[in-house]
């Protein structure tokens, strides 16, 4: 028997898509029955009250959560988000309902042993409700009380070898695509690098010393499955600088519409019939740089003019492979719209090697130069992208010691208002007006 009537939420139980309402109700029932005899450390009816307060929001069209005070674990400035409800008398089970962010593994691979240990802990000390995963990438444990937080942290670190993720003005939990673990497009091992960076920068992740949040995201190729280019202050996007590898026999299989060579790896196998595959129209014609030719059953690519957009490779993965000389591009400054409008990442490093053998030296150097500048010059709550806007891209090049190159721009500036630095101008700015007047009358 449900504790609260939920007529509005009940209408979200029908329909084919997995219903979070059904899941919450089943969970409430499991907690009420408690067949495993768990000694719940927070109220057993917390999920009933979560349903109840959500129903109330559906009725009012308004949230019933308050932002909440400082909660956290000793010595860390992030990883826990305080949350209280504004109707504690009616819904005491969610009076305190804090979130813990648990740092997800690279590629989000799990063993069931690990997941079961985590669910056991969360049933015992929390609501048993999670997000798999939050938008940053963490495992989100949704709903516990203040006294449980240190206890959960203790179990995570002592028994599970598992740390919290970031929140607040620090490095947020870095996230990656699955990369080389299962994707042939991946130009570097995203899993290894995200693991390295997360460990290398634990201090920055746990102890706020930044003007605002900072995100790393790692995509193995320009397809950008984790949206790094739009969602991270610094994105690492795999790329290559030699030639796309071509298997001519396989190209011809695609041309012949061989069933084992479906266009775009089968992405169009569905209820719509697009007709037979047409290499000329679907690959050559859509190549943004028109750098491909198909003559005498031979595909040739003018690689010097290819911008590595991935289209042809996506369409014919059995015939075309990324190059062998791989690395990544680094883009900086992406952020959501607050405040000056959204910013996409801007290309800072066109190509850098990804070398685990020297601890990604070339990459950490860029990271640390950027951080030094941002920590020195950034105003409170100023994202890196905003600082770049305020002080200029040229300043960014200066602090990172990177030489300007045409790859940095879509097109050169359209105004001539160049702010020269004094030392760039021959003879400097100090001049003698009297000397001038000798030749120019007043």
């Amino acid at each position, binding site marked *: 028997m449900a504790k609260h009537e939920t007529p509005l939420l009940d209408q979200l139980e029908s329909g084919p898509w997995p219903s979070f309402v059904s*899941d919450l109700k089943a969970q409430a029932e499991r907690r009420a029955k408690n067949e495993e005899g768990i000694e719940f450390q927070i109220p057993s009816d917390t999920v009933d009250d979560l349903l109840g307060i959500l129903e109330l929001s559906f009725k009012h069209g308004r949230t019933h959560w308050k932002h909440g005070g400082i909660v956290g674990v000793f010595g860390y400035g992030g990883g826990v988000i305080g949350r209280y409800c504004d109707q504690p008398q009616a819904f005491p089970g969610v009076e305190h309902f804090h979130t813990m962010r648990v740092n997800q593994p690279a590629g989000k691979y799990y063993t069931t042993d690990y997941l079961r240990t985590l669910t056991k802990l969360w049933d015992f000390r929390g609501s048993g409700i999670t997000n798999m995963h939050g938008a940053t990438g963490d495992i989100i444990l949704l709903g516990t009380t203040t006294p449980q937080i240190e206890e959960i942290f203790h179990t995570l670190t002592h028994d599970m070898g598992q740390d919290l993720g970031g929140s607040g003005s620090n490095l947020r939990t870095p996230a990656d695509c*699955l990369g080389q673990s299962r994707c042939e497009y991946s130009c570097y091992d995203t899993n290894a690098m995200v693991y390295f960076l997360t460990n290398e920068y634990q201090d920055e992740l746990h102890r706020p010393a930044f003007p605002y949040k900072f995100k790393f995201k790692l995509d193995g190729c320009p397809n950008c499955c984790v949206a790094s280019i*739009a969602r991270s202050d610094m994105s690492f996007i795999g790329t290559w600088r030699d030639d796309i590898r071509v298997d001519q026999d396989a190209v011809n299989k695609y041309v012949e519409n061989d069933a084992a060579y479906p266009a775009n790896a089968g992405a169009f196998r*569905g209820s719509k019939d697009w007709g037979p595959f047409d290499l000329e129209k679907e690959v050559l014609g*859509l190549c943004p740089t028109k750098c491909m030719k198909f003559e005498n059953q031979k595909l040739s690519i003018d690689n010097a003019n290819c911008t590595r957009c991935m289209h042809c490779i996506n*369409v014919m993965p059995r015939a075309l492979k990324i190059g062998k000389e791989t690395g990544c591009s680094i883009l900086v400054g992406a952020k959501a719209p607050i405040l000056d409008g959204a910013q996409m990442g801007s290309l800072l490093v066109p190509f850098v090697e990804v070398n685990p053998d020297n601890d990604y030296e070339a990459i950490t150097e860029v990271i640390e130069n950027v951080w030094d500048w941002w920590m020195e010059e950034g105003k409170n709550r100023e994202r890196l992208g905003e600082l770049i806007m305020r002080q200029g891209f040229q300043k960014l090049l200066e602090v990172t010691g990177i030489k300007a190159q045409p790859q940095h721009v879509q097109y050169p500036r359209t105004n001539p208002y160049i702010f020269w630095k004094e030392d760039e101008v021959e003879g400097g700015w100090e001049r003698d007006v009297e000397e001038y007047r000798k030749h120019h009358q007043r």
Partner: protein
Amino acid sequence: MAFISTGYNPAKPMENRITDIGPKDHNDFYPPVIKRNKGKWSHHEILEPGVLVHVADSGEEVYTVRVGGARLMSTGHINEICDIADKHCDGHVRFTTRNNIEFMVDSKEKVEPLKNDLAARKFDGGSFKFPIGGTGAGITNIVHTQGWLHCHTPATDASGTVKAAMDELFADFQDHRLPAQLRVSMACCLNMCGAVHCSDIAILGYHRKPPMLDHEYLDKVCEIPLAVSACPTAAIKPSKQLLANGTEVKSVAVKNERCMYCGNCYTMCPSMPLADTEGDGIVLMAGGKVSNRISDPKFSKVVVGFLPNEMPRWPSMTKAINQMVNAYSNGANKYERLGDWAERIGWEKFFEVCELEFTHHLIDDFRQQAYMSWRQSTQFKF
């Protein structure tokens, strides 16, 4: 409910403390077939919606069955995922960036039993627990934020709008009939925790009323300078206020016409709530993408300025989304993303074929970049 301690002693927090250990090592979590072939994959193929095979140079194969799900998930549900992974996948499972779940097996014979098992599992209310799909030229799971379930500034619910939208889009979750993949994202206030601003279709919660001011309590519960500095548009200033009983209190004043309803002040100061039944609702955006394929990544554009919150299923919202998906499906060329299609036909035609009304709210007036979006040309379509 007696308190059970782990041994942690609040008086000596540093005793035996372990910190800065980071995440678990992914190498311990890879399925064996992944571990063996990492970095040596030759190619992949989507066999049918939701089912992929990746073939390694060694000839080994891994079959993946991708299923959708709510990212809001109970431990009971996770345990069920574990049961399935134990039964079919030797105890391994992974999650995708877009909140899907992937079950991997190392041979073709294991695929059918896995699929049948997944497809047969339903919640008591009748919905699928593990619908197979989310690949290729279709619509995959919606990434979203917290909404009324857990956040203090949402202008709409996240899980509810997502469930309503995915029920409508479900056929396209399990099909590949669209010209290209179509990514839908959801964020419940303009902070866009989920960064929805580069999605083919974005659902965004939006407030339309500046905060209310609880003058009597404001100075008692808030640090006024923090509230003032929280405002991105400098709309808040300290001010003395006279209460009804005649006492003068320190509080703040808000210049309403400068407010962009972001809720940052409420984050800093609980005496400045802004949620409102009529004021809050939904903005729809369209035409963004993050992939570099063919065209550059681009931002989504606002195509519906406001829709009211209609609990529990947001019918006006799902109707507008359907109109866009159908017009796109009928009009776009193969491989053409929604934004590329809209640019090719022209946004004036986009509104026509999607049967969406263009209003003055859709013309940018926010800061300098607004100018970039006005038409500086005599080329347009009637």
